[in-house]
């Protein structure tokens, strides 16, 4: 772990891939594919928010969608009212982060843990979902924005160049901006994880008792981690809102929370690449299934989820990394050294 992000080749590889996609992607790929990939980018940011708090803070939230939705609605309401998107984008990070801090205070200072923590986060999501669904009547207006209940808020502005409200981004530019945000979030999280704060988080994940016996305030720490994760989820929500140009209460849905869990789980807890891979794989699959009339898509997705849990409980990235390491060890030491050590650090390539 002490191998800092700065010296990790995997880290630079990821940034290079990201930058390459950012600059070269729009030149070589048609617009539809760009829009498609934009979606993966947005959801990757969302997946990273959970991947961070779960994998590097040991906080398992079943309600990450609460912040995603909050960010999306914040952006929608603010951008419709302000007529500009830069401030709303910032708000959509800050407001969910603040709410996450408040909820985190409520939970962690109440010493809630594991499954109970999960239920509380889930319940909060359900409350948001119910209330958002209930705003169909004309009396639910914030400034110029009708909340619209089940139908949601349509006509959300596309991102504009900061300071120039009329300079809307075209799909390729939107992709580039989002890709830049993804890279920034990824780099930011990697640096955060490599920082002392991040290392303490990992310590708390590994052994809460020891962390508090070293004098670290576990509760405060968790609140901060949770709040950062909430902010990132909110940012992803805002990106989602502007990408789709509409938002409805399903942004708060259980399904959204559950999807985030599955992405992280499939990709691998304790990595940052894993959640991104999870998004790409599973979203691609969902899309593909919707275009085939072979089987009910629920059957296939359900089967895949069960198979993942039973066969790859650690997720793709750690499993692959384990295989790679085993193979490497075997190749280096010959057959006698089959007892491959576990990878010595989390997130080495992540």
């Amino acid at each position, binding site marked *: 772990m002490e191998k800092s992000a700065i010296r990790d080749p995997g880290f630079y590889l990821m940034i290079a891939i990201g930058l390459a996609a950012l600059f070269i992607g729009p030149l070589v790929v048609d617009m539809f594919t760009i829009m498609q990939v934009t979606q993966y980018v947005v959801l990757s940011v969302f997946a990273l928010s959970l991947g961070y708090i779960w994998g590097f803070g040991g906080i*398992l939230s079943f309600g990450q969608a609460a912040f995603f939705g909050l960010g999306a609605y914040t952006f929608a309401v603010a951008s419709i009212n302000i007529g500009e998107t830069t401030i709303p984008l910032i708000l959509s990070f800050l407001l969910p982060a603040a709410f996450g801090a408040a909820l985190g205070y*409520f*939970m962690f200072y*109440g*010493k*809630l*843990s*594991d*499954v*109970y923590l999960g*239920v*509380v986060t*889930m*319940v*909060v999501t*359900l*409350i948001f979902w*119910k*209330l958002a*669904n*209930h705003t169909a009547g004309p009396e639910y207006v914030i400034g110029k924005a009708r909340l619209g209940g089940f139908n949601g808020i349509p006509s959300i502005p596309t991102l504009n160049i900061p300071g120039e409200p009329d300079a809307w981004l075209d799909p390729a530019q939107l992709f580039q901006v989002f890709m830049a945000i993804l890279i920034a979030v990824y780099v930011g999280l990697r640096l955060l994880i490599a920082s002392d704060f991040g290392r303490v988080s990992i310590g708390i994940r590994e052994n809460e008792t020891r962390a508090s016996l070293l004098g670290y305030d576990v509760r405060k720490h968790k609140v901060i981690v949770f709040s950062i994760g909430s902010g990132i989820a909110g940012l992803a929500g805002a990106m989602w809102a502007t990408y789709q140009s509409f938002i409805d209460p399903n942004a708060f849905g*259980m399904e959204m929370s*559950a999807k985030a*869990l*599955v992405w992280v*789980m499939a990709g691998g807890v304790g990595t940052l690449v894993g959640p991104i891979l999870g998004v790409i794989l599973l979203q691609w699959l969902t899309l593909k299934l919707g275009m085939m009339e072979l*089987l*009910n*898509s*629920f*059957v*296939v*997705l*359900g*089967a*895949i*989820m*069960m*198979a*993942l*849990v*039973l066969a790859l*409980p650690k997720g793709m990235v750690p499993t692959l990394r384990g295989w790679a390491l085993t193979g490497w060890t075997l190749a280096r030491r010959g057959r006698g050294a089959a007892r491959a050590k576990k990878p010595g650090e989390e997130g080495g390539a992540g």
Partner: protein
Amino acid sequence: MDYFIVVALEMVRAVAWLVLLSAGLAIIFGMMRVINFAHGEFLMLGGYTVVTSTHAGVNEAVAILILAPLSVGLFGIIVERLVIRRLYGRILDSLLATWGLSMLMIGGVTLIFGNTVEGIASPFGGMAIGAYQVPIYNFVLIGFAALVLFGVWVVLKFTRAGLIARATMQNPAMAEALGVRTSWVYMATFGIGSGVTGLAGGLIAPVTGVVPTMGVNFVGQAFITVITGGAAVITGTLSSATLLGTISQATTFLAGPVYGDAALLLVALVLLRLLPQGITGRIFKRSL
């Protein structure tokens, strides 16, 4: 006065409803610390068993009271053998696997039955309380909710199997060291929990009808009732169902169903904050 009685009755029915929805889940969670996220689909399966067998000419009571619990119970045992067994002690993994199972079941039932099946009419019709009509079936629901809890209590308290179950729940390793086949206990528990869920699904089918996706509406409420109640199956379920049911129903009467639901969730939230291990984690600790 009539209205007051009707309202009170409706509250009791809401409590009974929560008890029925969550009893099977509570049995499984209390005994095994496994969250069955496919719980809603187990209810759905119970409903489908009743509807299809009734349409095939089976007597309605037989379908609800015998076929539904039996078939869902058997299904539960198969699921335990194939999936849950491999995931003991991994709460989250079992949750995700059963969530996958729930999607699989929704899709599977849709493939087999299609998405629309004619329901069965709720038996018995209505009766008058003063100027009001209430469904007689409400009393059936209340009765069976009470019966389920009472039955579980009798089994746990007075039978050999119940004793073994309670011992396993408190200290599985020690029970094992005393010769208890805990894996059988878990299998049986999952089977019985599923059976109770099947019965509940059968009982609610005439009220709500059946569609493959119906479980989604119930799993959240059941989940919250169980967790709020805490580990004790009977007292936990009863206390949280009573609290959540009456408060949400009262709010529904006063302000409408959205606020009723929101009140249920808020109460659960506050309770969990105050009692992080659920109601029976702090009070009624020693109860069943």
